[in-house]
């Protein structure tokens, strides 16, 4: 099922949930809505589900405008963060509930529920009640209940955030696998950018009710179109510093009071043409501690992450986060030289926060 959202606005009184959102989702696509809490992603999802009515704009499933269609007539399945399993029903009754409401005959209900339960690996839990199940099992039941009515669209509202880290990893794979196999158009709301990056075909990044970007994961990472996207996607987050980019003798220089960095033309020409200071962004993995480095700074904090160390280096009044090999055993207070990979640097307009390199 193809989903077309056109100029969607949803307000609660004076509070804007989401504003002027336009988004087209292809049939069978897995799209993630990514953003901090309160960014409007869940509002959009619930509007798609029919729980909220759009204030303005249109939502189409295929060719059909579904703005006023009741949730029960939209043929959607939804998995909630809290799972929302009915505590007074057994697992079987929970999964069968959508079928019962569709007035599917008892035999067929029985068969379909068992089939779904087996796919989800909860076939032996059907007589239990939700309270007796672990979080992971409840999650599978919720997924089973969403799938049993063979929905046209699957909606996920942060389904993995109540699970522990290990279980989250396995469920992530399972959901993606299932979605690809069944080919159901899916929308997945999350604030965890790792989840979004690993699972989605395309990611819609939202902030304060506005769509920031809608692209494939790699695009978002390598060519962020706004400063928000650059900062939100990637962990640890990108370093930002205000610089002046100037051109002298065919070379481009980005500099602040304490840093001076040379740039290539493909990254430097656009910011150099910009009047005044720009925001430079550089990812932690693009900064190396290297004796040959051209910038000197002092280590402020070392945070061991296990595989590598997260190091906060202060250069003058600026602070840079970078990742370093644990074997080097850096200490706080140590003076080091840094090498910046300027071919990966991003530049943003400080006022509009739009990228100077990539046009929208």
């Amino acid at each position, binding site marked *: 099922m193809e989903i077309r959202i056109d100029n969607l606005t949803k307000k609660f009184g004076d509070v804007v949930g989401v504003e002027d959102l336009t988004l087209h989702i292809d049939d069978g696509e897995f799209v993630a809505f990514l953003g901090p809490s309160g960014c409007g992603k869940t509002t959009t999802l*619930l509007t798609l*589900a*029919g*729980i909220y009515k759009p204030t303005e704009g249109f939502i189409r499933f295929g060719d059909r405008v579904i703005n006023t269609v*009741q*949730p*029960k007539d*939209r043929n*959607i*399945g*939804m998995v*909630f*963060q*809290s799972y*929302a399993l*009915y*505590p*007074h029903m057994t697992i079987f009754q929970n999964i069968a*509930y*959508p079928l019962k*409401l*569709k007035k599917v005959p008892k035999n067929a209900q029985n068969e379909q529920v068992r089939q779904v339960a087996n796919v989800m690996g909860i076939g032996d839990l059907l007589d239990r009640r939700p309270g007796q199940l672990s979080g992971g099992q409840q999650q599978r039941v919720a997924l089973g*209940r969403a799938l049993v*009515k063979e929905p046209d669209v699957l909606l996920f*509202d942060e389904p993995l955030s109540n699970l522990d880290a290990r279980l989250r990893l396995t469920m992530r794979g399972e959901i993606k696998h299932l979605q690809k196999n069944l080919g159901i158009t899916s929308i997945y709301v999350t604030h965890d950018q790792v989840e979004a990056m690993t699972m989605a075909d395309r990611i819609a990044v939202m902030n304060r009710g506005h769509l920031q970007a809608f692209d494939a994961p790699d695009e978002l990472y390598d060519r962020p179109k706004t400063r928000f996207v650059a900062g939100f996607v990637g962990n640890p987050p990108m370093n930002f510093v205000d610089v002046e980019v100037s051109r002298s003798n065919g070379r481009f220089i980005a500099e602040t009071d304490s840093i001076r960095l040379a740039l290539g033309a493909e990254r430097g020409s656009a910011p150099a043409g910009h009047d005044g200071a720009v925001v430079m962004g550089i990812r932690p993995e693009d900064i190396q501690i290297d004796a040959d480095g051209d910038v000197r700074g002092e280590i402020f904090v070392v945070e061991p992450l296990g595989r590598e160390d997260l190091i906060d280096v202060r250069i003058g009044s600026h602070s840079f986060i970078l990742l370093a090999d644990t074997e080097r055993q850096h200490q706080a207070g140590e003076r080091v030289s840094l090498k910046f990979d300027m071919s990966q640097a991003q530049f943003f307009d400080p006022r509009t926060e739009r990228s100077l390199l990539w046009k929208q």
Partner: protein
Amino acid sequence: MTARASLFDAGKLKVDESPSSLAQDLLNALRLGLIGILVMLVAAFFFSGVVGPLFALGNVEETVMDVLTRLALLALPFIAYIAAASVARPYTYTDTARALGLALTTTLILFAAISAGHYVFNYGVFAPRPSLQMTLSQTDAGLRVDAIVAGGAADIAEIQVGDVITAIRRDSVDLTAFNRRLSQSEADAPLRLRFTRGAEELQETARVVLVSDKQLSVLLPGLALGLVFTAIIVFLPGHWAPYIALVGLLSPLMVGYFWVIVATFSYRTEGLVPLDSSDNIGGFTLKNWESIFAGNISGLEFNIWPILMTTLTIALVMTFVVLLVSSMAGYALSRMHFPGRRFFLSFTLILHGFPAITLLIPIFFVLLRLGELPVIGELFGFNSIGGIALVMVAFQLPLGVWLMKGFFDNIPWDMERSALIDGASRFRTYWEILLPQIRPGLLALGIFAFIGGWNAYIIPATYSIGSGVSNLPVFLNELIDETAPVDWNQVAAVGLFQLIPIFIFFIFAQEYLLNIYAGGTKGSS
């Protein structure tokens, strides 16, 4: 202590390191005891001299302040002993003898002081009491006069030593009855005594006089009580005190309920003591219960079953309707979006605070008019069970709606959304998904409504005439009002019969009861 650096040198705490002497402790204890006495005296004066006269200005004929004054004066010595004992208590861990000695000495002195006060002001044991100024002893023949005060009341009535008193007027008396009669007499009241002198039958009228015989020996029981009391206070483990206080405060209630239970199983009771038909202690009987089902109490004939049915109908209809109506309204207020929602919510809250009972008069007219309608009138008009139940439902609605709304509010929104997406209508969501999840709330409100309906008195009594629609409480009150003399033990049996479901709820659902009788106001406080 002195060596330690202090944060505030100027205000350094001075610690008296020498142990206090016995004399100091004694003075301390006496001082506290006297403060206790003073406080109670002030309280007594406040009740009798300030509050009492103030209300007398408004022409309120009350004796509450007299009773409070008496209570304050009665408690006075005990408060003094407790205050004194608090000085001795710390020594109980180290020096038992010292603690006891200190406490008893103080008590002795305080007792002497209080007694002196009583002596001077003719109060307490020195208060004048009705007397005939003679001493009597019980013999088989009657009350023998052992001694008389010369010139006293008995002497004036020409009673002599050796006379045997048999009756006051026509009532034959033993010593207890004689003393009771005497103690209830006022000053100068005439008592006509029948007595035998030798073989002669005589009668003379003696006039009661109020006499204060200031014999110091009557103080001895009081002193003993005081000493024992202080000793107990000194050695009482501190954590027992709240329990003792709680039991003390509750005791009138517990005694009352205990009486109902005892009374229903005995012929008659004097105080809490069950007596059989020949006035001996004991006498277990089921006759009170039998008479309920036989349908005859003190000559009033009735059939218990229709009364029971009426009571049960009112209670059950109420429970059912209250649950249904308030859960529906509560659901809409909690979960639905519609114009006027805020108005309805605030209106519910106002009704919740509004005393519906003040509308008793106009509702009478509403029921009269309802009774004139066809069909509805039969069911819900004046003098119908339905009408009574409906009024009571309406009175409980504000609380019910508010409570139900609160319970619905606590169910996660995702539950509702999930059901809607699964394909349920709003009504189905309410009925199949949400109602089962607020079962504790339904149970609490249900119990509340049932108890309200089962106990209802004023509404059934006001809106019904004749016994056709009277319920157990109305019937019970009729029994008390219309039978004379009232057979209290049979009445008690009906009362206990009415209490049975209440006791059952009390035993099994205390937690619900405690929660709901705060009126669903927990959230607001």
